[in-house]
């Protein structure tokens, strides 16, 4: 169940991410659940605490008490900053101290609309053409696709660690760390 996207928006973003980080012999954005990472960020405030900062110090993947999934509480100022960034200033005076802010949610809504309702069904070449035609949105979604594929899975992407596994990256390794030999030898 998506937090922010409707069914069609979800399908369009998923299709776009699949062009950016495609599935080949290794899993891509689709298998990594990158769209869920983006949906989790845009809908960060759908849960309390919001999905902004994962907890510490350990995920449990290499031992230790697993606390990554316990997200930090935000103080009132942090909440103002992140709501402004995600939801936009919407004419609310305290959100317009530095001028009006177009929120990420609106940038996605607009960007998805310019890709077209049929984006998920059109051929790959046409999808690429439409992505390239909207450079600003492409940059935004590329940035988020990378975060969703290679960031910690607690944020909703990198499902089953597919982003780390196919490149041979162990990810967060505390509290095990690496031995001196692993650091210094080839």
């Amino acid at each position: 169940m998506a937090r922010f996207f409707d069914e069609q928006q979800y399908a369009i973003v998923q299709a776009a991410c699949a062009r950016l980080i495609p599935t080949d012999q290794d899993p891509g954005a689709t298998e990594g659940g990158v769209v869920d990472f983006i949906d989790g960020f845009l809908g960060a405030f759908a849960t309390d605490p919001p999905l902004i900062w994962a907890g510490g110090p350990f995920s449990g993947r290499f031992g230790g008490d697993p606390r990554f999934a316990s997200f930090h509480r935000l103080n009132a100022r942090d909440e103002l900053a992140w709501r402004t960034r995600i939801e936009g200033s919407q004419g609310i005076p305290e959100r317009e101290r530095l001028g009006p802010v177009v929120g990420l949610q609106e940038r996605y809504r607009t960007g998805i609309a310019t890709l077209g309702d049929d984006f998920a069904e059109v051929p790959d070449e046409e999808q690429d053409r439409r992505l390239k035609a909207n450079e600003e949105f492409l940059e935004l979604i590329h940035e988020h696709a990378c975060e969703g594929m290679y960031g910690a899975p607690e944020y909703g992407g990198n499902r089953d660690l597919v982003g780390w596994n196919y490149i041979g990256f162990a990810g967060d390794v505390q509290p095990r760390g690496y031995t001196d030999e692993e650091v210094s030898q080839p």
Partner: protein
Amino acid sequence: MSRDFDAIIVGSGPGGSTAADVLTSAGWSVCIFERGKNFLVNLEKPSELLYEFSNDEIKYWSRHFLGPDPWLEPRTFRMTPDDGDRLSIGEVNNLPATVGGGGTHADGKVPRFREDDFRVLSDLGPMEGTSLADWPLGYDEMEPFYAEAERLIGVAGEAGANPFAAPRKDPYPMPPGAPMYCAVVTSAAAERLGYHPYPGPTACNSVPYDDRPACNNCGFCGYFGCPIHAKGDPVASLRRALMSGKAELRPESMVSRILMENGRATGVEWIDAAGERHVERAGHVVLAAGATETPRLLLLSGLEHPEIGRNLMYHFQTLTFGQLPMRLHAHKGRSVTHLHDDFILINDEAQRAAKEAGLPWLKGGLVEHGGAAHPMLESKFYPWGPEHKDMMRESPMRDHMVGFTMQGEDMPQATNRIDLDPSIRDIHGLPVARITYKPHRHEIAASAHYGPKLEGILHEAGAVWARTATSPNVGAVIRQGSFTSSPIPASRHVVGTARMGTDPATSVCDAWGRLHQVPNVVVCDSSPFPTGAGYGPTLTLAALAIRNARAITT
């Protein structure tokens, strides 16, 4: 007048924490104000540390976990007044705003300065367009404070390994940690070319020290908080100060003004997390907000002196990167394990390069040997589409790239400065710091001289390609993936802005960091540095904090 504390300390980074440790050891009561949040020490039970830092690229790289949030507390930037009021608003060379300050995100390289760094003007002579000045103290006076700072924060290093180091009386408190493979390769190449690499002195435990564990090489070091507190700076000093029972730490508390009467500070006005203003009284005020925020606070307090905020210096970074054929796994280890100082020296070749550039002399800086590290950041540099996957598997930028950062000495210029932005306000309603900064041609010439030598080391190490960029960028704008080069310096080594000296007309602080105008205000960060040297400022500012804080108690 009633006073609540013997001293108020503004800022809990390496300077403020060190000052708190020294003052509480002398029996003083202190209140430490920190504008950021506390992820470091359990304030109810300070023998216990907090564990909120983690191996998490998103939290640190994308979401300002250590603060400041650039929308809540922006800064503004311009290169010269010709640019108008400002070129940009937001993140400008931010250091963490959190309990522990810049010490939380640093990879902990803490070299001492050399003897001649304290007397550049008299040793080398003036340079047109600069405001060079000698320090009002020398290395010999600093040596015992350097040694004390190394013991307090816990430094791992190898005495004698750097032939150009200033003399030291004691060994390092700990032996060096494990060398990173990429640095094993580059330091061997540097040695073959006649340079002198050495294990960098690092404020990170190589063995258990001061009731904190040895570093386990997790690799999320520079720009990340240490999940296990193997980095000693500044958690060691802060914990000790709080455990004395004489210190109180107030996170999320922004000092907005120093209160003064008849040339003496009486306390501070501060703003709590809910936005309420309060007053706290003390006999002394110790400023340790960093070389950007300290002059801002002096200006917000209504102090007027033509030198406040001036002579802002960073390090001019020469960034030379190359690709080696083998995998380097630079995501394992302490970010940087080796350094060399050869390019700090003035020799015949450097003199020839200076002459060609029309300069009286030319200095480079410390060279850090390190590699790129983590995949999220790497992935943003690569093109999208099928190529993305091939690049990520092959990993030319993360797993094959090795690099040098030369922290080039920056000349002091009166025109490079911090002042108050005329109209941009932070979330508290206070005018933000405006940075006006443009490098001197000395730094650009030094970088142009040493960049090819750094590339030469990479080629000697077997690099298939090597390239050099600088920060601040001084050429055409470079775009690569989501990265765009910037005229804003990336080096978080920020110094100058409240220079110390003996003449109240030309300096803000006296030789003990006390404001000439308000002598019970003592600056314990890197703002008083008259010159920046080619070394990171942290150990020097901590040593100065020990010296200057102790001086007010005796």
